[in-house]
């Protein structure tokens, strides 16, 4: 079980309110990702749930019971830290066994569980080494191992992959997703990586300055962002947000079109612009197109093998069904 409910949870450090009263429901077995710009309070929120910070107000319930003032150990949650926080003077085996030892479990059961976790995470070949003798990815695995042996009701991850290189990140991303499928335990995952959020989450929570801007499945957020902030935050590259006369034509203060929702043509289209920088990724090409009258250049996605270059003129037609409209406050117009 791992149903977590936040009810008007608030957090202030001194006079600074980092998290204004906030409600959130996390269902059992869900993979929830917190995203948001740096300093928006993702880690703080996670630490409130973990019990490492005291709430300034509100209530946290885990599986229906009030956990607001429970100590971290009693909440039955396991956390994987960004720095891994392995115990440097203990071997991998002792690291993983530590929470079980603290729980007073008997030796045979500890060994059984540690060996089980080591097998699942492929740690067996370095189980007697110390953290200092492991690579970043291996340390990450040990940290996850230490979390899963406790069989917690939910896992908390604070940017667990941000210290790894790109290739390893992709691998660990898959492993964590697989782990979630297999254990079917609630996971709360903090990241500021677009791709991690979109690929791993059942539910994404977009935060800004401690506020929840929108909660929904990755595709919901992609298709119907509730405001310009979410629109700009979800999706990579960012959605093009256009203000002014062009927006007014659609009866909105701002319109948004994703880079992938343009038709490109050499003959004619709604807008005409000049290609600036182009980024060739092989599978895709991204053009930065300057259109007269627009405040910012548009980002356009084209196929991988398009024969267009710097300085060329390009005609663009936004996909009519994919234009997002927002009012002056940035809220979505349906």
């Amino acid at each position: 079980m791992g149903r977590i409910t936040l009810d008007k949870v608030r957090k202030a450090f001194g006079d600074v309110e980092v998290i204004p009263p906030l409600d959130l429901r996390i269902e059992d077995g869900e993979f929830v990702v917190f995203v948001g710009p740096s300093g928006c309070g993702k880690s703080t929120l996670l630490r409130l749930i973990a019990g490492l910070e005291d709430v300034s107000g509100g209530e946290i319930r885990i599986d229906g019971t009030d956990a607001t003032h429970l100590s971290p150990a009693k909440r039955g949650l396991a956390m994987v830290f960004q720095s891994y926080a392995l115990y440097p003077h203990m071997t991998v085996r002792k690291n993983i066994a530590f929470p079980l030892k603290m729980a007073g479990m008997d030796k045979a059961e500890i060994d059984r569980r540690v060996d089980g976790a080591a097998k699942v995470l492929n740690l067996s070949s370095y189980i007697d080494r110390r953290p200092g003798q492991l690579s970043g990815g291996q340390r990450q695995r040990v940290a996850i191992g230490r979390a899963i042996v406790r069989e917690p009701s939910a896992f908390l991850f604070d940017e667990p992959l941000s210290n790894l290189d790109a290739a390893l990140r992709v691998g660990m991303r898959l492993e964590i997703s697989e782990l979630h499928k297999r254990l079917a335990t609630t996971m709360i995952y903090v990241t500021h990586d677009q791709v991690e959020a979109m690929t791993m989450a059942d539910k994404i929570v977009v935060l800004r300055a401690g506020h929840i801007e929108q909660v929904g499945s990755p595709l919901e957020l992609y298709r119907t962002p509730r405001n310009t902030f979410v629109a700009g935050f979800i999706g990579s590259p960012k959605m093009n947000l256009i203000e002014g006369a062009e927006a007014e034509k659609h009866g909105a203060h701002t319109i948004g079109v994703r880079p992938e929702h343009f038709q490109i043509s050499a003959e004619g289209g709604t807008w005409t612009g000049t290609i600036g920088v182009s980024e060739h990724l092989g599978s895709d090409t991204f053009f930065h197109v300057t259109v007269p009258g627009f405040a910012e250049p548009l980002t356009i996605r084209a196929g991988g093998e398009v024969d267009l270059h710097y300085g060329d003129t390009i005609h663009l037609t936004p996909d009519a069904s994919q234009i997002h409209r927002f009012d002056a406050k940035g809220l979505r117009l349906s």
Partner: protein
Amino acid sequence: MATQHSRSAARAMMAPAVFLLLVWMLVPLILTLWFSTLDYRPLRGTFDCCEGLGNYVRFVSSSAFWDSILTTLQLLGGVLLITVVGGIGLAILLDQPIWGQGVVRILVIAPFFVMPTVSALVWKNMFMNPVNGLFAHAFKAVGLEPVDWLSQFPLFSIILIVSWQWLPFATLILLTAIQSLDSEQLEAAEMDGAGPLSRFGYITLPHLARSITVVVLIQTIFLLSIFAEIFVTTGGAFGTRTLTYLVYQRVIESQNVGLGSAGGIIAVILANIVAAILMRVVGKNLDA
């Protein structure tokens, strides 16, 4: 850049200093070695050669030698225990956010800057004096008989004085070690269900292990040669005669330079053995 030329230039420039150091060290050492083989008692005018190992045998076979070894070990052990345990405690306290932290830290370091002779005199006359000392007043205030510290508990009193001097050093080193402990490790342990005591035992203490060994090593080296504190307080009486003090007595009070020199050489050898053992232990600890 260490070219051939710059290296020989460096050697040439270092030579005077190295030479001076060598002379500084070797001359007294060789003189002591030489004296230790003589029957050299200046007051009686004896200066006879070829005692051989006689002085050594005499020094070691006197009961005062073994007593002094025991006293030295007791002093060393007592001071190390108090400074390490107290240092850890103080370091943990000073690591807490408290008001006026900077001033408190400087105050804690202060005893280290007081000369040994001065601090021993201050303790002897201001604290431990059975008539006027602060301890005596405190005891009388609660209706107890004042204690004559230096004659009733002489060794313990000296341990106390020396500990007071060395506590700041231990605290300082251990404080920096505690401050370098990653707080996420403590939080992880907290989430893993470790209470405050387990966190201290399993996380903080192992993290401090290296610094503790460094403190023990450095203090041992200095504590083996403690002299002023004993000289000023008990003058080596009441079982406070350490090996260093015994050597001093043999040379100066008994005016037996040969015997004292032999004792000095034995002290040097013993200190080197202790240092070698400690280096082993510490080295192991530092590698891990």
